């Protein structure tokens, strides 16, 4: 065992030396920046991303909940940091040989270095009063033996996962200049509660709106309508979800999820139906499909339902709108040439252009900046696959390849991931998440059928 660590140690020193040579700064400004950050940023290895370890936090209070939190936070943090693939995470089941830290800042960095870690997250959990905890964390650079980053959180002990999510997002921002998504939510519709639609036709299962953390944990139910609901869409402030509700006519409802308040901004009825809402990037407007002029066209309304203006005017079906990040353009689906295809149009109704030339495309979702691309579902055989078109080059790349049917893509707020529904595997529809490069596939739901994801800001 010791000899293996010696070898790892030697390899580590060797790679560090090569790393230093390879990363010599070229300009004075680079030199300045790197000198000031040399101990704070854990740099890339030549064989890949920096390796990070997340041992269990120290439990500084005797309560069993604190011990549970100390382990849970480290586990969730590991998965959160792993998700963005900026770090190579050192597997937690290899930590057995490392002595426990004596305190938050007194940890056996040499041992961690022998295990191949470049950075270690040291953390502690302490009960401070009734159902409240203090979580303290430091990120140590194993080579420089310096703590490069530290935070302290105070809060409720009810859901300790959020401490790990917050810590992960802060580490990503501090170390990689990256906006993490560990605090984000994913809304979707599900039949998981196996209820039947109230109405005159039997044997119809409800779909209700739910949301969970980005990793599938911490599920909350939003609607209790005992009806069909579809296409949830998070508002840009992450506090409301617009969705299509069958009342029994299709209408758009907005649920202010943290206030328990429900609105019907465009007030449909059996003659004027509205569906598939999408928010403008500033949250002030909704675009949606409506039959108010006799057949499905796109309309834009203010958030309070006022000022409804018609965006499209064509005898074909125009539907599935999504807004560009700056709000100047929208993408949507139209079957004006026969099969449904993705089009882009200016928010003022001008500048229409066709984007896809395939057999059947739907549910375009415009990526957040800095990427300028649209993900959509494309019929590739019996089912659909998720594809992405780069709007600068018109190049199309495919993220999924024919396992089940893959539909309804939704971008993570940093644009690096896409959530979608898929029937791959067991055949039920589940929500899956994949990197925009087609790597890092993971499933986040498992109960009932779950579809039409919307990733929160």
């Amino acid at each position, binding site marked *: 065992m010791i000899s293996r660590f010696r070898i790892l140690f030697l390899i580590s020193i060797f790679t560090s030396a090569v790393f230093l040579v390879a990363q010599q700064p070229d300009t004075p400004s680079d030199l300045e920046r790197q000198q000031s950050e040399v101990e704070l940023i854990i740099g890339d290895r030549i064989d890949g991303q920096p390796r990070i370890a997340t041992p269990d936090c120290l439990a500084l209070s005797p309560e069993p909940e604190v011990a549970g939190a100390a382990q849970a936070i480290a586990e969730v943090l590991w998965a959160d940091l792993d998700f963005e693939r900026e770090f190579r995470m050192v597997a937690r089941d290899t930590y057995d040989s490392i002595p426990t830290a004596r305190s938050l800042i007194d940890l056996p960095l040499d041992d961690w270095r022998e295990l191949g870690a470049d950075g270690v997250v040291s953390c502690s959990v302490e009960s401070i009063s009734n159902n409240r905890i203090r979580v303290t964390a430091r990120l140590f650079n194993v080579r420089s033996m310096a703590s490069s980053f530290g935070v302290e959180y105070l809060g409720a002990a009810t859901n300790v996962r959020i401490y790990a999510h917050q810590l992960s997002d802060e580490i990503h921002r501090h170390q990689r200049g990256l906006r993490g998504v560990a605090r984000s939510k994913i809304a979707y519709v599900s039949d998981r509660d196996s209820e039947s639609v109230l109405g005159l036709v039997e044997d119809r299962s409800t779909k209700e709106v739910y949301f969970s953390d980005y990793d599938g944990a911490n599920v909350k139910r939003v609607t209790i309508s005992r009806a069909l609901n579809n296409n949830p869409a998070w508002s840009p402030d992450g506090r409301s979800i617009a969705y299509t509700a069958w009342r029994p006519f299709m209408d758009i409802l907005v649920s202010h999820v943290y206030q328990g308040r429900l609105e019907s901004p465009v007030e449909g009825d*059996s003659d004027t139906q509205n569906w598939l809402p999408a928010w403008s990037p500033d949250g002030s407007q909704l675009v949606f499909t409506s*039959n108010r002029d*006799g057949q*499905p066209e796109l309309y834009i309304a203010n958030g309070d339902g006022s000022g409804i203006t018609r965006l499209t005017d064509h005898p074909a*079906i125009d539907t*599935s709108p999504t807004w560009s990040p700056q709000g100047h353009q929208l993408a949507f689906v139209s*079957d004006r040439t026969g099969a449904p295809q993705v089009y882009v149009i200016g928010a003022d109704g001008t500048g229409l252009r066709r984007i896809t030339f395939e057999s059947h495309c739907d*549910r375009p979702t415009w990526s957040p900046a800095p990427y300028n691309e649209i993900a959509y579902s494309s019929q590739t055989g019996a089912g659909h696959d998720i594809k992405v078109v780069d709007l600068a080059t018109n190049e199309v790349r495919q993220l999924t390849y024919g396992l089940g049917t893959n539909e309804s893509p939704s971008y993570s707020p940093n644009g690096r991931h896409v959530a979608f529904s898929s029937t791959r595997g067991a055949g039920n529809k589940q929500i899956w998440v994949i990197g925009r490069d087609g790597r890092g596939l993971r499933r986040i739901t498992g109960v009932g059928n779950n579809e*039409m994801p919307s990733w929160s800001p």
Partner: protein
Amino acid sequence: MQLPPLTGGREMACSEFSCWVRMAAICLASAVAMACAGNPAPVEPEPPSPPPETNQAATTPPAAPPPPTAPPPAPPIIEEEGEISTRSLEELNREAPLQPIFFDYDSSDLTPQGQTILQANAEILSEYSTWVITIEGHCDQRGSPEYNLGLGERRALVTEEYLIALGLDSIRVNTVSYGKEFPFDPDDTEDAHARNRRAHFVITGR
């Protein structure tokens, strides 16, 4: 409970079961030369008293009159309308008096068969002139759920327009699209797809 006395025996109180046990015991005792079945038992229970009379028993119709000598006249045909109108909307819809119509793939054009069915439905709706209906537009399981909401909406609207052209008051008809949400047949076969591409009629009011 006091039971009536046993015939041929001394008066006693026993449950029905114990009486039978007693009888069987006597039977066994006298069965040296002959079988129980061959010789009636000396004691027999009386049949239990009838249940108390109820109102239902009091309303038992009198005995039927003697059959007439001439054959009866044919009964009048009773309008079925009265019978249907006593049913719940759920039962009425289960019987589906209005036939669904079917569409071609990715199409909201009425087929000739669809038009024939709609004409028959229009006649039924003019007969039952108070019915209010919802036309549901449905799609097959191919294609994406979002686009299919629009396609189902068009199927419902086209069907509504045709019925209105045939004279149905527009106030009696609503439309809704369910896209591919409620397949009639969830299988992934051409037959199932064809059955799912439909406009389905639900009676929502009488």
